[in-house]
């Protein structure tokens, strides 16, 4: 009932008909464990077109309270556009985005429920960090003391009265975070919050977000580098070319790290053919080598021997999380 209602605008599909069932099927598969009534963030067939370009393509997902979700994808995958639609800064071409069950722009005083940072550089350089926060807190009738508290939370109180002009990128990231925390929100939405942070800053951010989510609050952070958020998030949404590639828990994703075999040969095309005939998936690697997935070095060596293909190197490699990510995001290239 609820899902059907949300889909009315999705693509001109009549609810209740067979085609509506087919249209929703993949979405159900993406979000089997999230109840829509309790979901903090819901994207329903969210689509954004800029002329010919489809930046976000029929994207659906839902986030449970208390979770930290990594919203991942290469640069240009449509992450920021999606976040802008969630936060009411951009209007979807079709579909809809719900925060706490309603459109962001319809929330009364959204700042006390949602904290968001889209760009780390959104400050007037001539204004002090504290004054920046006060201009925002005044608009939602929060006391100036909240600005000071938020500055303490991000450990920026010593620079509070300095002009932002003199802040490092790390300090600006933290000032942005302070602005998101002004209203003591239940949901944090951060776009590439780790950009420009040094390793110490990344660790600080991780601890901060973990503590935040431990209080039952929800976090959505985007990144184009999985490693940056891998130790922070409990689940990932991976998108590419505006489409959802994977929604899974971090454990499920880690489980996908299988062994692969790196094989170097002067007759790579023939070797690739032979492996393909044996139902083994391959991807090209650098310097006259390829990676054979889901198999063993013995099997690859035997196949090469049978085919009479010389092998110059044969090694088992375990891929990193980052490689899984790259693999996932290259699959949908069409």
């Amino acid at each position, binding site marked *: 009932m609820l899902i059907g209602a949300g889909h009315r605008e999705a693509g001109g599909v009549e609810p209740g008909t067979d085609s509506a069932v087919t249209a929703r099927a993949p979405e159900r598969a993406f979000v089997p464990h999230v109840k829509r009534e309790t979901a903090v963030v819901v994207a329903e067939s969210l689509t954004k077109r800029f002329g010919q370009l489809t930046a976000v393509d029929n994207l659906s997902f839902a986030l449970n309270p208390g979770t930290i979700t990594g919203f991942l994808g290469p640069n240009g995958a449509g992450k920021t556009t999606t976040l*802008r639609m969630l936060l009411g800064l951009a209007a979807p071409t079709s579909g809809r985005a719900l925060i706490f069950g309603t459109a962001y722009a319809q929330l009364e005083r959204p700042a006390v429920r949602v904290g968001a940072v889209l760009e780390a550089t*959104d400050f007037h350089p*001539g204004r002090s960090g504290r004054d920046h926060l*006060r201009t925002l807190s005044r608009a939602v009738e929060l006391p100036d003391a909240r600005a000071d508290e938020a500055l303490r939370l991000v450990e920026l109180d010593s620079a509070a009265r300095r002009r932002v002009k003199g802040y490092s990128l790390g300090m600006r990231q933290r000032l942005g975070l302070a*602005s998101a925390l002004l209203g003591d929100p239940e949901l944090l939405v951060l776009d590439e919050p780790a950009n420009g942070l040094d390793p110490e800053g990344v660790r600080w951010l991780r601890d901060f977000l973990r503590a935040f989510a431990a209080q039952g609050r929800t976090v959505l952070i985007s990144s184009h580098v999985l490693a940056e958020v891998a130790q922070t998030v409990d689940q990932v949404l991976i998108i590419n070319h505006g489409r959802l590639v994977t929604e899974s828990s971090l454990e499920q994703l880690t489980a996908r790290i299988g062994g692969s075999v790196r094989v170097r040969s002067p007759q790579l095309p023939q070797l690739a053919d032979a492996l393909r005939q044996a139902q083994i998936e391959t991807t090209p690697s650098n310097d006259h080598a390829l990676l054979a997935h889901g198999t063993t070095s013995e099997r690859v060596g035997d196949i090469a021997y049978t085919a009479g293909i010389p092998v110059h190197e044969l090694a088992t490699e375990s891929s990193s999380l980052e490689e899984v990510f790259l693999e996932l995001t290259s699959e949908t290239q069409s």
Partner: protein
Amino acid sequence: MIAQTKAELLKIRSTRTTFGLVLGMIALILLFGLLAGLLTKTPNLLTKDDHRAVLGVGSIAGVFSALVGVLLVTSEYRFGTIRPTFLFTPRRSRVIGAKLAASMLVGVAFGIVGEGIGFGLVYLILKGRGIPFALTGGELTLLLFGTLAGIVLWAAIGAGVAAIVRNQVGTIIGLLAWGFIVENLLFAFVPSIGRLTPGEAQNALTGLTTNHLLSPAAGGATLIAWTAALTLIALALTARRDVN
């Protein structure tokens, strides 16, 4: 919208730009006041319009109040603060309304300071030169309050045009070119149209009686109509456009 207006007033106060604008305005009014008061020859200071022109030198404050409105809007787009601003107040009409209100409040302050300095200075110079004061009490009231109203409305016009254009340099150059070139050319060559421009409407509002100018009441109404039209366009466009 009161909370948002307070926020906008804090934005105006919390950078040095506004301070620079105040200093620039005072310097320019002092300069033009001195030049007009001291260098205008006595035969050119006989008519009421002559007196309106030199005593109303404080109207220069209108340029600066317009700049306050322009900067309050365009600096948000320039530095990206428009994103947090709209995140905190997603009803964008409230943001635009607050920016207009805050600009106009600053316009009142600018107008009082600018006119006080301009009128006071020129009045004293004319008195020192022994030139008899040509305006009646009612005419003086119209000059002072008409000029003040114009200065305040120009703040709103600045904010409105800025919300339509968004680009800072583009808005400033556009407004200066319009105010100092296009309006003057229009009024000189096609006065029946030129008198309907905001600048000439403001001149009419101060009581100036130059040929072809509207009556003070019609001038005031025309200026208000311009402000309202630009505000409506700004509201409609801001509500519709995506923020990058």
